[in-house]
């Protein structure tokens, strides 16, 4: 599968998700469903890498993307008073998407996936709640929290379809991407729950940048290792390293190995 085919498939999945959750009022008042391209890439990674792929798996993958959209919508709800119409509908968009993922899986009689996704949503909600609990003491605990939030849904899909061999690569990659975003937010002076927690656990705010840089460095090495372990096809690996989670070493490393 070449790079163009990979990009087309990702776009096609994005369109499938849009069509599945289309609703006139929500289209007008909310930003619509949103899933990061990296998450779509990892949902499709086994397919890109030549694993056996069925229509049922494709539907399941779409439902995972819909759940990501549902949780993303709810993350966008702010504390403003009084709540705006856009925000009210964003709450309902998340709820509607949840109903739709359940219905899609019910239609293909994939109750196991409903169960796995529900369990993942529980984990994600618990970890998000921990941002408000002030119980996290160590940077490792921050990392564990971020890891679950970013990857629990994808893990549930991998588990249900016996694609666990891609789990660690996905985990390192999505953590890498999240830390890159956090670093950008830090440099821009923006607030984020993760930065706030890191500030609390690292004694001094000035250590946050250093900690993030170190983690990025380490994750970068792991991604290359795991990409090799998974025996990713050359084109798939190229897209992963150059477009999905672009990072400084990727191009030269790929050239060296390619």
């Amino acid at each position, binding site marked *: 599968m070449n790079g163009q085919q990979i990009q087309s498939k990702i776009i096609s999945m994005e369109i499938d998700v849009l069509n599945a959750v289309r*609703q006139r*009022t*929500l289209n007008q008042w909310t930003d619509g469903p949103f899933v990061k391209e990296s998450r779509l890439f990892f949902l499709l990674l086994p397919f890109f890498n030549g694993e056996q792929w069925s229509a049922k798996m494709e539907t399941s993958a779409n439902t995972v993307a819909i759940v990501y959209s*549902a*949780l993303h919508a*709810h*993350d966008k*709800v*702010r*504390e403003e*008073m*009084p*709540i705006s*119409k856009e925000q*009210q*509908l964003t*709450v*309902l968009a*998340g*709820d*509607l998407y*949840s*109903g*739709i993922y*359940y*219905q899609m899986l*019910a*239609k293909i*009689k994939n*109750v*196991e996936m*409903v*169960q796995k*996704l*529900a*369990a993942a*949503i*529980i984990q*994600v*909600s*618990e*970890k*998000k*709640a*921990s*941002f*408000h*609990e002030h*119980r996290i003491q160590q940077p490792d605990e921050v990392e564990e929290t971020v890891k679950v939030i970013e990857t629990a849904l994808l893990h549930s899909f991998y588990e249900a379809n016996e694609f666990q061999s891609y789990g660690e690569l996905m985990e390192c990659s999505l953590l890498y991407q999240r830390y890159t975003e956090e670093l950008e937010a830090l440099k821009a002076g923006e607030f984020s729950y993760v930065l706030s927690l890191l500030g609390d656990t690292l004694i001094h705010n000035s250590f946050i940048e250093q900690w993030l840089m170190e983690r990025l460095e380490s994750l970068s090495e792991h991604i290359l290792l795991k990409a090799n372990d998974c025996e990713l096809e050359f084109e798939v690996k190229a897209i992963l390293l150059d477009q999905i989670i672009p990072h400084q070493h990727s191009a030269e490393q790929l050239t060296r190995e390619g």
Partner: protein
Amino acid sequence: MEKMKLKLLYSDLKPELELIETELEQAVDSESLLLNEASLHLLQAGGKRIRPVFVLLAGKFGNYNVELLQKVAVPLELIHMASLVHDDVIDDSEIRRGRPTVKSEWNNSVAMYTGDFILARALERITEIDAPRVHDVLSKTLIEVCRGEIIQIEDKYQLDQSLRDYLRRIKRKTALLISSSCELGALVSGTDEKTAAHLRRFGYFIGMSFQIIDDILDFTASDEELGKPAGSDFIHGNITLPILFARRDPAIYKLLRENLEKDISDDKRLEIVQTIRSSPAVDEAKRMSTMYLDKALQELDYLPKGPATKTMRKIAFFIGKRKF
């Protein structure tokens, strides 16, 4: 007191409802102390548990198996709870059932996570049932309830909306979940299709009547009885049946129009409440509620006579007469 009276009606189901209460508490158990506390806060605020009751009662028309029925009853109540937490964010509500809402006790984010958590627990539990039809019915209901809520926001502050708009909204918002409670109770108990259909329609008509009464009480009950300010529906822009009937009086229409979508004083709120309360609109709305109740009772006539039918009949009468 009213809740107590209602619970007396289904005292025959006390052991089953206690089991369901325990299951509900277990269902919201979480490794997050915050989510656990927020969910219990909601659970302990009480509620009529009308959905589990209808699941159990519908189950009496088939092979009554509490273990199986609670696997439907608990998720249905959890779905209802999850929607309440999110509704309070949507409506900016500070008080529910006389207690601070989750969003008010914590914040909007915590309310969002709590709702997501409770809904996921509901789906996790319902997957213990391996019956495709159950999942078809429940997933469709979930979607329709959300669509109803979306329509409710679209219709907000639309004083000139039609009666049909209102009925379509309450059907999705309330009646469907009660209707599905009856249907699912019947399905998991293996009743025949005809019985399940009568139970589903009974639930639908009761749900419609129940919501209309709720909308009437928002004007006729006191702040204390409601556990929130009377007239909250109008303040939030929800145009309910009493308003639809009352607006036909030009003077009332003017009063409503002038105060809609405004940050009104407490005196003005009470003036509006009093105006609607003393208008013929309340009686007209009650008549419509009674019409739905009668239809519900007619459905019961098709079902075998017995204690379950009797209790359903009593609940229907109670809903028609409840004061708050």
